[in-house]
């Protein structure tokens, strides 16, 4: 880990053109300012790189927090291969990601398109739609959702008025608990929505005018003009959403009181990792799990980057 040197490399003076001192010093100033802005990151790295490497070491040890770690070679890796609960928790996390990410991106884009119509009171609507994202994964809201989707919750009351008798708790049943959490996640589409909205504003109106002159329908305009032009932003949101939802923890923890229940249906990978570390005091195994998650997220991100050349359109 070599820290980049914080002095700009002296530029080769070209023999032909004598660069004006003014412009080269300005450039040097610009170089400097870049590094200055990076400083906080370097500072943060100092604090994170050591634990980061330490956890890599721990992944190959047996460490119970109370005694010094003992090197155990590939024991943790072998255990991960046969640990059915771990496989199950990966399954829960994948299912959650594959369903909630596309749904929340579609919801975000849909609302952004509607808001882009330039209606009056846009700012208010934008704030209202953004609100859930600010509070969405907070403990208080998850508690609220427990009240809404409980056995005596608002949802079952509403169903009863429609004549549907559903007395089971939505979050207390293994078949539906994860569905509730997916819904909660889709509901927090504010951040991608705001980014989509900015992207939609960037699409030149001339394109739409030209398309309209050629007789393109609204839908055709959206498909052939809007989507390609904002595809880099869709890609950006996709990457962020996948990385974020792979690391889901709070919702599962709160809704199940930390158990991942009922019947492990909300046992996200991160929640299981936490249980290994802090319930079983098995920090070596938990560290190995953390690195596996890093590799899984890296793999998904790589697949996304490879896949982008088939659908992401860069104008330049």
């Amino acid at each position: 880990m070599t820290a980049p040197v914080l002095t700009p490399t002296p530029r080769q003076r070209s023999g032909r053109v004598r660069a004006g001192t003014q412009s080269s010093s300005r450039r040097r100033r610009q170089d400097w300012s870049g590094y200055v802005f990076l400083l906080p990151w370097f500072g943060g790295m100092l604090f994170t790189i050591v634990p980061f490497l330490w956890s890599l070491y721990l992944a190959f040890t047996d460490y119970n927090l109370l005694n010094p770690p003992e090197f155990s070679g590939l024991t943790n890796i072998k255990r991960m291969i046969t640990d059915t609960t771990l496989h199950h928790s990966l399954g829960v996390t994948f299912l959650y990601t594959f369903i909630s990410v596309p749904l929340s991106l579609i919801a975000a884009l849909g609302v952004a398109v509607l808001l882009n119509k330039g209606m009056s009171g846009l700012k208010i609507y934008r704030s209202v739609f953004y609100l859930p994202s600010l509070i969405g994964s907070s403990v208080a809201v998850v508690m609220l959702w427990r009240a809404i989707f409980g056995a005596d919750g608002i949802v079952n009351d509403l169903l009863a008025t429609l004549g549907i008798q559903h007395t089971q708790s939505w979050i207390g049943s293994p078949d539906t608990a994860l569905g509730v959490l997916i819904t909660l996640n889709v509901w927090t589409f504010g951040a991608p929505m705001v980014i989509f909205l900015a992207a939609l504003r960037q699409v030149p109106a001339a394109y739409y005018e030209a398309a309209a002159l050629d007789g393109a329908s609204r839908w055709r305009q959206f498909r052939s003009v809007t989507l390609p032009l904002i595809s880099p932003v869709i890609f950006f949101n996709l990457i962020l959403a996948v990385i974020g939802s792979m690391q889901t923890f709070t919702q599962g923890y709160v809704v199940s009181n930390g158990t991942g229940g009922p019947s492990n249906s909300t046992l996200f990978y991160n929640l299981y990792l936490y249980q290994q570390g802090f319930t079983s005091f098995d920090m070596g195994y938990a560290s190995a799990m953390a690195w596996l998650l890093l590799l899984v997220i890296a793999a998904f991100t790589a697949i996304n980057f490879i896949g982008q050349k088939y659908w992401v359109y860069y104008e330049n």
Partner: protein
Amino acid sequence: MTANLSRRALLGLGLGAAGGIGVAGCGRFGGSTNTGGADAAAGELNFVWKGDATRAEQMRAAVDLFIEAHPDVEVSTEYQSGSEYRQKLAIRFASNSPPDVMRMARESLRDYGDRGVLLDFNEYSDVLRTDKMPESVLNAGLVDGKLLGVAGGVTSMSMVIDHAAFTRFGVEAPDMTSWSWEDFGQVSAELSEASNGEVYGGDLPIGELQTFGTWLRQQGLDLWNEDGSIGFTAPEVTPWYELWVELEAMGAVPAGGAIDVLGAAADQSALAQGLTAAQVIPSNSFASFNTAAGGELEMGYLPGETTGAGRGMQLIPALFWSISSATAAPESAVALVDFLVNDLGGNEAMAGTNGIPANQEVVSALVQDLDEDEQVAYEHILSLGELDLVDPIPAPVGAQEFMEEMSTIADEVRFARLSPAEAGEALVEAAQQSWAQE
């Protein structure tokens, strides 16, 4: 660059980077620098426990009395509620700054004890008086002949029924001193029916370790044996799950997902929410449950207590006081524990927050000035003490992990994903896996 960094410095950095895990908001219990016993000067103690702000006031009042009697000792106190306590305690040990005196959970005593980080009270028998404690309660803190925990209070798992519900729906309340599991099923089903499904007559927490242990002992078995081996076989626990299936079919207990339990606190319980008319609770929590559930609770035996092969209920330590083996002031630390266990004024200040005092003389002296609900709990636990009960065997390493597995298996049964026989197999397997991790 990492070569000259000690493990401790690494951990310190790690915790700092992880967003200050050890430095949570209220009632910090994060091992700020130099509170650890290892660095403390003699006569300085760091004392931590688990609980809320109310308990903290009571505990601090007791500690202040101790300091009055021992002016040369300084005591800094920290507390934490919920499951965070366990995690922070582990991190304190991991970062080489353990507290001197701490609350230790029943299920964690061996986890710590087996790793050699706790002090053996037997070496300080001149400071710690244990002659007024029931033998079984004292022995619960023994691990391989070493006394690593001293019971800070005594409790038991008991059943409470809500008389208000029985009166309201015109069902005759059961006699809790002699009822069988069949009686429990019948009367609970009767109440469920009389209330037209509004209230379930009872509930059976098939995923709860202590309740399961009680049932096992009624069959003449136990959770684990002295040598740490498993005390039951798959065919022997199948009836436990069959019992629930039967009760659920009768309508005596709620089906899976039929009610939501919000949390462990009394006011979040199904009983307090008016969803069930009976619940298994720790006896020392009777006052808070009775307050939360409207004041008409009766506490008694679990069903089957007099009709089985043996008695299942036990007097168990509500918690242990333990001392870090790294403490710089072992004499003072033991003196503090002795004070908490045996001092009348100290126990008066703690007001039963940690269960019924383990010292029988203190109990007799205090029983006069209790309020009504506390009196009920006291009398109940004292009456249990007069019975011929099976002594609790300290939990093996991995008990905590087993508890989680057990709760998952219970869910699987409630949602008919496992048959009782399969659940029995799964439970034995979970026990093997949890306890095999030495």
